[in-house]
């Protein structure tokens, strides 16, 4: 092939690529515009235009925060932390076997068990913890228990997915070596697999705990305990100064938990 044809080939290639990019941008723009018209069909634009006035009014009513209200929040805050922590533990306990059943190199059957484990993971992951809480409150009644279970059930998929991915990435010759000593299946897991994946596992657990603290702050909105209960009741009576304080407390909790998880992570994993 001489240089000229090569050059023109390169050029058409670029042009082809450009067409693809502009084409997909155009389609995306059309799609967005279409979605926009459907979405805003029922929007009442007077409310939207009115928003700045409403916003100024809201801020007026929100400040100053009702600082004394904090005395009622301590118990709720403690509940929130419990929901997140116990929920993470529950998720971990369920996720461990699921992860080993889902990982290609540890599952007893790629054809039957693995797809089931993967479906459990997908179902748990696609349903938000607030929806889990909604269902559990309906079944178990309002309270912390529903919150713990909601956080736990949502965490299963997240933890198991990251766990099984790290199990699939392990060094297989160490596994072979332990197998060749005559070790049983569980001994192989204990000696060859767990030590290799432990740092990744710890990281995932801490990461999920941090997320769970965030999520458990709002579970009270559907009655599943914690500080969200107070947020919901203050909103219902339009006690905006209390709402401000609760938001401040939630933000502080989230920031502190982020700080703690970063510290623990660097201590454990280094």
């Amino acid at each position, binding site marked *: 092939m001489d240089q000229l044809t090569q050059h023109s080939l390169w050029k058409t290639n670029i042009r082809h690529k450009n067409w693809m990019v502009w084409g997909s941008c155009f389609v995306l723009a059309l799609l967005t515009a279409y979605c926009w018209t459907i979405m805003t069909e029922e929007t009442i634009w007077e409310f939207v235009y009115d928003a700045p006035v409403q916003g100024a009014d809201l801020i007026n009513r929100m400040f100053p925060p009702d600082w004394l209200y904090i005395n009622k929040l301590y118990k709720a805050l403690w509940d929130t932390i419990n929901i997140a922590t116990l929920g993470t533990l529950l998720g971990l306990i369920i996720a461990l076997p699921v992860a080993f059943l889902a990982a290609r190199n540890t599952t007893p059957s790629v054809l039957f068990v693995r797809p089931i484990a993967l479906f459990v993971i997908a179902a748990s992951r696609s349903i938000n913890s607030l929806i889990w809480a909604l269902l559990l409150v309906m079944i178990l009644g309002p309270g912390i228990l529903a919150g713990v279970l909601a956080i736990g059930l949502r965490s299963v998929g997240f933890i198991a997915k990251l766990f099984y991915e790290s199990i699939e990435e392990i060094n297989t010759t160490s596994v072979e070596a332990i197998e060749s000593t005559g070790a049983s299946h569980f001994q192989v897991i204990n000696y060859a697999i767990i030590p290799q994946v432990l740092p990744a596992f710890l990281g995932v657990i801490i990461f999920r705990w941090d997320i769970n603290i965030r999520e458990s702050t709002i579970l009270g*909105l559907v009655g599943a305990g914690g500080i969200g209960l107070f947020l919901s009741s203050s909103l219902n009576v339009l006690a905006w100064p209390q709402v401000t304080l609760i938001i401040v407390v939630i933000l502080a909790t989230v920031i502190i938990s982020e700080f703690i998880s970063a510290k623990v992570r660097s201590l454990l994993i280094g």
Partner: protein
Amino acid sequence: MRHWERPHYIVANRFWRLSLWVFFFVYLVVGIGSIEINWIRIYEGLERGSHFLSAFLHPDFTTRSTDIYAGILESLTITVTSTVAGILLSIPFGIGAARNISIKPIYLFCRAFIAISRSMQEVIVAIFLVALFGFGAFAGFLTLTYATIGFLGKLLAEEIEGIDRKQLEAVRSTGASWLQSIHVGIWPQIMPRMIGLSFYRLDINFRESAVIGIVGAGGIGATLNTAIDRYEYDSAGAILLLIIIIVMICEYLSGWIRKWIS
């Protein structure tokens, strides 16, 4: 005869190791003790739970089909519009929040904007935006746009701060303007990752759009909430199944597109 004991690498000191275990178990007892369990209520609930489970296995898509269709459509439109708007807006915010190419006041403003977005739950943001803009999909759209800006803006800023200085300097030394240097020196370096993350965010936005309806910000969440309030378990089961299926399709598609791009 020699003594051997397993060495511990994470917490080497025996005293601290034991105290951590003690602390853990004490917490476990106290924490579990703080859960008030109403056994009678749970017993009553079990029946409802089994009803729900059987309804989930026999979902009813038809009775509430118009509501479900409208809810899913609203969730999907909110997802698409908020993701597109979020991506477009995250570009200026991300550039503004990158220390190496921004100026101090803009940097601080953008960082604060992103930090608040990231530490606020979508649902809490939605509560306020519903209060401001009224019930409906528009508040949901704004909520998810705001969350997307926080998510992508931070990652974009970090990518820009981490890029190859030399390439940027090389472009600048040719006398390119600020805008040109971003277009030529930065954009090519971060684009592949940004596209991947955008699809990832599309995923998240759909999942969230199913939730913010609970506080009145439109989407399938509102339909689900009503179905559960009315004890229409078979419709609720149908909605949950739809959510799971759509999330799985989204995940599969975005994984496929990410692979196709890289």
